[in-house]
């Protein structure tokens, strides 16, 4: 440990206190499993971090150093400003941005640990410091690009270079070589650090540019995990047990969310990491084959007036999609739901796990529009109730309810769990147009002759017209 750091707390005491803080954080996460207690859980975790910072400042006798307060003050100001200003639809890029900053901080801490600041210069701390630099830099650049794509500053389309995979492998191999050379002191420290940072940036860049818009929930979850891992490994490098514990927790959380997202989209993590989007091109060339029989063998009945359906409906399920969020129609949708409730119907929302641009995004958008959270249901909770519901209202969703996912083998959505909207007797679809969704597979529901009413156009306008239609008709 560095001479300048007079330790005022014994190592044992610090370990015990750190363990206590880590337990507080774990308890906070435990409280996050229920809406009623989640606020307390979050506050508790924040409190634990604050205590951790104070503890470290006392432990390393940092309290008299004025620059620390200045930096903390600036960081707090920017952080608070961001937290207050960000819109709910921008949440994915906000998280990506913050993620990237965490990665950057871990990278810098790792860099200092390499030259012995805060570390003991053993082989163990050397290696972990180098890994921290690499993962931190990868998280930083990767998150920044993801944020840029989500914010539409960078083109959302996946960019695949020639030999993309080889370039990634090459960057990784070179990194390993640099690390090995550095261990045997064949490279100077400044050169090692520079090379590592450059390679990590290159790797992060190659890693993220080929991930497309709709795969972003997975990319963000993964980067979230990486930011935790980067923190944990920089903790290994400087021998700080609190960093290691909390970084590990964050890493696990990101990994779990990544798994959930992959399952919900029926994609393997490796396919996304390797940028496999070739299937998409094939399927969009011949969309006709994806038709399922429901469109052909049913007799065409005279279309009922949608107002009659609305007035007779007792059980209504609303399926919101990302299109609703893009049109900013959630407040209007809430008004429609209120009107339907006034007419005596029970209204519930069915939320597909990948509705939105990050895990759970749709719930936040609806909560913002004052929808009660006890009306929000996960896919599995409502999926067998579409059959008995009187009406399903789809707003800006396509792939997540495309019945082709059950039948159309070889398409990107085949096997993806979907909402059983097609089993409902009456379906109102408020989509912008009838084009295939992100997956590029035609939706046979659009061709269903009975029970499907299409309200095409900007959801804000179509919902407004719909609302005034059902309000005036009693």
């Amino acid at each position, binding site marked *: 440990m560095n001479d300048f750091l007079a330790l005022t707390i014994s190592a044992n005491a610090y370990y015990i206190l750190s363990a206590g803080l880590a337990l507080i954080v774990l308890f906070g996460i435990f409280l996050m499993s229920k809406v009623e207690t*989640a606020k307390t859980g979050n506050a508790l975790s924040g409190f634990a971090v604050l205590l951790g910072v104070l503890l470290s400042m006392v432990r390393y006798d940092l309290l008299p150093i004025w620059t*620390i307060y200045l930096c903390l003050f600036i960081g707090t100001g920017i952080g608070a400003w961001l937290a207050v200003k960000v819109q709910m639809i921008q949440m994915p890029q906000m998280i990506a941005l913050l*993620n990237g900053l965490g990665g950057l901080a871990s990278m810098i801490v790792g860099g200092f640990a390499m030259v012995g600041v805060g570390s003991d210069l053993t082989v163990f701390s050397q290696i972990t410091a180098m890994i921290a630099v690499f993962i931190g830099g990868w998280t930083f650049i990767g998150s920044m690009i993801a944020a840029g794509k989500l914010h539409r500053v960078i083109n959302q389309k996946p960019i695949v270079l020639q030999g993309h995979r080889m370039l990634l492998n090459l960057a990784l191999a070179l990194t390993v070589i640099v690390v090995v050379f550095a261990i045997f002191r064949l490279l100077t420290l400044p050169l090692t650090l520079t090379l590592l940072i450059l390679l990590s940036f290159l790797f992060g860049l190659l890693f993220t540019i080929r991930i497309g818009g709709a795969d972003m929930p997975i990319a*963000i979850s993964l980067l979230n995990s990486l930011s935790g891992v980067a923190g944990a490994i920089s903790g290994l490098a400087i021998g700080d047990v609190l960093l290691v514990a*909390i970084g590990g927790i964050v890493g696990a959380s990101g990994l779990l969310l990544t798994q959930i997202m992959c399952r919900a989209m029926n994609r393997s993590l490796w396919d996304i990491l390797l940028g496999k989007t070739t299937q998409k091109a094939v399927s969009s060339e011949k969309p006709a084959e994806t038709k399922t029989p429901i469109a052909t063998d049913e007799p065409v009945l005279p279309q009922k007036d949608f107002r009659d359906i609305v007035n007779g409906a007792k059980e209504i399920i609303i399926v919101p999609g990302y299109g609703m969020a893009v049109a900013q129609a959630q407040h209007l949708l809430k008004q429609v739901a209120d009107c339907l409730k006034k007419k005596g119907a029970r209204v519930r929302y069915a939320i597909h796990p990948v509705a939105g641009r990050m*895990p759970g995004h749709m719930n936040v958008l609806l909560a913002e529009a004052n929808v009660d959270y006890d009306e929000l249901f996960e896919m599995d909770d409502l999926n067998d109730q579409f059959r008995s519901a009187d009406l399903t209202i789809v707003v800006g969703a396509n792939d997540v309810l495309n019945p082709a996912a059950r039948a159309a083998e070889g398409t990107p959505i085949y096997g993806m769990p979907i909402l059983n909207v097609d089993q409902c007797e009456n379906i109102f679809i408020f989509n912008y147009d009838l084009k295939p969704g992100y997956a590029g597979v035609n939706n046979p529901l659009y061709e269903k002759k009975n029970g499907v009413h299409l309200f095409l156009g900007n959801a804000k306008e179509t919902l407004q017209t719909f609302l005034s239609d059902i309000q005036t008709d009693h």
Partner: protein
Amino acid sequence: MTWLHGILLIVFAVSTVAGYLLIRNVPSLLHTPLMSGMNALSGITLIGALVALAVTFRNQAILSALFAAVAVIVATVNVIGGFGVTHRMLMMFRKKEDRHE
């Protein structure tokens, strides 16, 4: 490897498993706030940044201190922004009984 390193690795493994088991119980309803909360936690690397800033500042290594200062600032943004936005989101989740309209 010393005993300290061994302990650190064990802590890493245990906290990862414990975190994984606890987070599995969080409903998808709360996945966005969960993620932003976890994100804020990853800013705990702030502790490392503070130590680096203190050492470089006392050594009067200006350039290094500048880098450390950047690390402290961005880690603080990560922590404050993350917890702040998580709180903001959780405040929006309400049931009918909770509303006084």
